[in-house]
């Protein structure tokens, strides 16, 4: 008797699942302080458009490093999510290891993929060996954030355009009693600001599979950082503390990714905030690294329904209204032509601070991945080296460059 009841309950529940035909896909993304609002804004419309797809959000990744690492571990343990958001500089290792899957079969079956706003130049950020492995979701560039009230109080009227002008501004502000004139985002993920100083000189940190930290351009970058840190007497703040201090109105100039603009504006104190283009070494920068992340398919499911649902989600967040939410809620730019030009047509006019990064788009260069398995460790070595400049531990940039080159060489394949 008991057995039959159990069986009946089982049958009933099974048929209930069948009736709804809900497909569940699992999804994970980094930086909850930036993107929580974005996905919250997207979900209602997505649920309406695709009522039978349920997106299960996994715990957010703390950073892009954490994102890569979590995926690698999940690949070994066999519980990969269906879709994951990965930093643009961390896509290559996942493709090398066969974890991220090619999107070509899905793209081939789409009738008007181009019309949805995906076009070559933007897809190129996630194209490896002529195969598309990801759909870029959000693109950022480094910009300057200025607290105009502090700048005025410090006697600065014009936004600086080169680092020398930034340093001069620091000194003027210090002389006028501003304690905390600058925060320069050296500790941003993936050595992004180092790459920014290198691209500014049109030099790539990885060239033909070789890490070019031994180049004269790298030395220029190190010396430029040292000059900024020491002459501005920059405090060694943790980046989250720096962002909150800037939002609270304690810091005059902050150089950081445009991505944080949404978060900063949401918690902004009572002051006038203006963004300006990223300063260059002499004159405007010649290039800047593209930050941001791309959606990658990592589903291990054989069920075509799950795979299709994953693709639907991937496409939704990177095109149309989904992509437009990225610009509305963060400082990122959606790398989607249709979203940028049609839905967001007058958005940038109303939000001139978010326009700054769009103006810099012609400078867009790749955010490069370090070759081999030790990308994360190499990132840490460079991070540690720059920290030594900030804390004043390293004073001789030639020696520091030498040490950094040696330590990185240890971590390179055949090194």
């Amino acid at each position, binding site marked *: 008797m008991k057995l039959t009841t159990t069986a009946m309950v089982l049958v009933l529940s099974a048929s209930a699942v069948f009736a709804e035909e809900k497909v569940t896909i699992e999804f994970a993304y980094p930086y909850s302080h930036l993107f929580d609002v974005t996905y919250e804004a997207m979900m209602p419309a997505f649920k309406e458009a695709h009522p039978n797809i349920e997106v299960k959000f996994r715990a957010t990744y703390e950073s892009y490093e954490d994102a890569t*690492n979590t995926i690698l571990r999940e690949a070994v343990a066999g519980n990969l999510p269906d879709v994951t958001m990965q930093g643009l500089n961390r896509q290559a290792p996942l493709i090398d290891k066969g974890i991220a899957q090619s999107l070509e079969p899905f793209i081939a079956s789409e009738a008007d993929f181009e019309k949805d706003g995906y076009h070559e130049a933007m897809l190129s950020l996630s194209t490896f060996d002529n195969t598309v492995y990801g759909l870029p979701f959000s693109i950022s560039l480094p910009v300057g954030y200025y607290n105009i009230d502090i700048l005025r109080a410090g006697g600065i009227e014009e936004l600086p355009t080169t680092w020398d002008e930034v340093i001069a501004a620091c000194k003027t502000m210090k002389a006028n009693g501003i304690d905390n004139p600058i925060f320069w985002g050296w500790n941003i993920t993936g050595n992004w600001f180092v790459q920014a100083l290198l691209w500014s000189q049109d030099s790539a940190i990885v060239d033909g599979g070789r890490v070019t930290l031994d180049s004269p351009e790298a030395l220029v970058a190190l010396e430029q950082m040292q000059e900024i840190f020491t002459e501005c007497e920059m405090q060694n*703040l943790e980046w989250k503390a720096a962002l909150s201090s800037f939002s609270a109105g304690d810091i005059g100039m902050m150089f950081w990714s445009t991505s944080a603009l949404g978060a900063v504006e949401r918690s902004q104190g009572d002051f006038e905030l203006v963004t300006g283009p990223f300063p260059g070494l002499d004159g405007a920068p010649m290039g800047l690294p593209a930050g941001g992340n791309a959606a990658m398919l990592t589903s291990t499911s054989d069920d075509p329904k799950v795979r299709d649902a994953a693709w639907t989600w991937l496409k939704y967040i990177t095109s149309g209204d989904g992509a437009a939410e990225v610009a509305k809620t963060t400082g990122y730019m959606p790398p989607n032509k249709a979203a940028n030009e049609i839905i967001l047509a007058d958005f940038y006019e109303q939000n001139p601070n978010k326009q700054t990064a769009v103006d810099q788009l012609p400078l867009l260069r790749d955010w490069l991945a370090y070759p081999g398995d030790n990308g994360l460790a190499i990132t840490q070595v460079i991070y540690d080296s720059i920290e030594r400049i900030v804390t004043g*531990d390293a004073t001789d940039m030639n020696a520091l460059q030498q040490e950094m080159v040696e330590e990185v060489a240890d971590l390179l394949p055949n090194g």
Partner: protein
Amino acid sequence: MAVLDADLQPLRKEENRQARTAWGLAAPALALMILILLVPVCVAIVLSFSNYALGNPGFDWVGVQNYERLFTRSTYEKMFIATFTYVVTVVPISVGLGLGAAMLVHSLGRIGDIYKTIYFLPVMATLLAMAIAWEFMLHPTIGMVNRTLAMACGTWMEAIAFFGNGCADGFPLWLRDRDYAIWVVCFIGIWQGFGFNMVLYLAGLTSVHRELYHAAEMDGARSAWERFRLVTWPALGPTTVFVVTISCIRAFQVFDTIEAFWPQGGGPNKSAYVMMFAIFEKGVQQNLIGIGSAITVLFLVFVMFLTLIQRWLVERKVHYG
């Protein structure tokens, strides 16, 4: 002969049967010990000679390269300095404070229970959660510590160099300052750990025979210091060996505070890059299982060494039964 054999046979059988039962009964525990303790240690030792990275299909043997790097690279030099600074600072101070607090509490009687609870509170609290509370307190501008210090500005205390400089250029950044970072961690380690040592010493104190004090007094030990030197301290010998060993092992294991304060990098200039954090960073965050295993093996060697010293001391002379 044959008669003798016949007599012994059932006895031997009985012995065999008993041995088999004994092994059978011990087998589950043995199997578990081998499976969850010894096998992982062996795996770690084997992996420490490889360059295995998580997610790779295969790996190469690299010999002692990982160990060679441990002893030649400046990063690991910083790791050893941070770890030993922590151990050398935290162990004696937390043991000393533990003993002092235990003797004071022991002399109090009833009210002592209140102190016991107060000193033991930090031990019961999760260090990770406490670290976050400390992080708030140590915030350079809005934290309680610097706010309190700033209250001294404008008073006579400005004459002291530390306050004078602090009032003029701002008080230390604490967690972001390479000169202070490791000492902040040490302070929190002591604050958190000495209550535990106190409890261990309290247990030790109750087992010191009263008669010994009376005897000492009759023999002319009048002052409190004499009584401590001649009776309490020797009688606490076994407890001290245990407390020091446990404190050492716990100090080597410090991780929560570092991870909470500096999830990336292990302190300004790696000044608080302790071994446990290094294992975590290399093995878990960066997937470099090879070098991570090498640090783990070294860590095990240190802990084993400490345990052996403890055994040797216990067996030698510190026992007054």
